[in-house]
């Protein structure tokens, strides 16, 4: 029998001020999943960069739009889905920021950092309803931080701020 994942869902206004709200949620979820400090920071940065893409590029900084986040803590991985209401982007169009010509460019490092910090990164276009990014970080039991010996709780929140 497959155990049910712990789930947290949040809907936020498409506003850069909500980046810190999302980061706080990520820290709690990653801590609950048992990630250590370094992995927690990597996940936080990956969500931060994905949120910026969703708010800035996807929703065009339109506060009337929403960004939807879903965290699933599975036994072996943390799966995060972030959905915006934009038209999406083509990963093939994203240049390598570390190549000589791009090294001193001011922008273009967000996707690179997400790919570096997460084990999986997928982009799915949802015709008529936006773009969904999936981030996966595998849980390495050898590095998992035990949280007071308690079992993970099943959480499900849905809030709009």
């Amino acid at each position, binding site marked *: 029998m497959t155990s049910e994942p712990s789930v947290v869902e949040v809907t936020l206004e498409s506003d*850069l001020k909500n*980046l810190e709200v999302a980061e706080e949620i990520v820290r709690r979820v990653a801590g609950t999943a048992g990630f250590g400090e370094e992995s927690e*920071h990597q996940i936080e*940065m990956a969500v*931060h*960069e994905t949120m*910026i893409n969703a708010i*800035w590029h996807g929703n065009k900084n339109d506060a009337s739009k929403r960004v939807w986040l879903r965290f699933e803590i599975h036994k072996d991985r943390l799966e995060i889905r972030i959905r915006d209401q934009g038209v999406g982007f083509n990963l093939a169009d994203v240049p390598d*920021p*570390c190549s000589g010509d791009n*090294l*001193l*460019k*001011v*922008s*273009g*490092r*967000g996707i*690179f*950092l997400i790919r*570096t910090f997460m084990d999986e990164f997928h982009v799915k276009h949802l015709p008529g309803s936006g773009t969904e990014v999936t981030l996966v970080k595998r849980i390495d039991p050898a590095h998992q931080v035990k949280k007071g010996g308690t079992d993970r709780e099943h959480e499900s929140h849905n809030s709009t701020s």
Partner: protein
Amino acid sequence: MSMKATIRQVDSVMVIDVSGRITLGEGCAQLRELIRDQLSKGHKQILLNLADVTYIDSSGIGELVSAFTAVSNQGGQLKLLKLTKKVHDLLQITKLYTVFDIHDDEAKAIASFQQA
């Protein structure tokens, strides 16, 4: 916590002590304005002390690159001081670690400007 900065002069070098978040929006804009202001005053030797930077994102890294380029284009030098582990790791991942002149000791960093 948003970005804060204090500026002090040591010999010919303007040392900018940065704390807080250098992220898309306010933090990046503040840093850009600080560098622009120093250059407009003719201060072309700038040492950015990042010891108390709690968070930097890809836009913040881009802003460091922008500052480096702006100062270099005016014949000056911008160096970095006291990177936190997080900033150090990000500069290594993005292959920018070799682009910047990075120091851990302020006196030696100041001296390196004077030798230039």
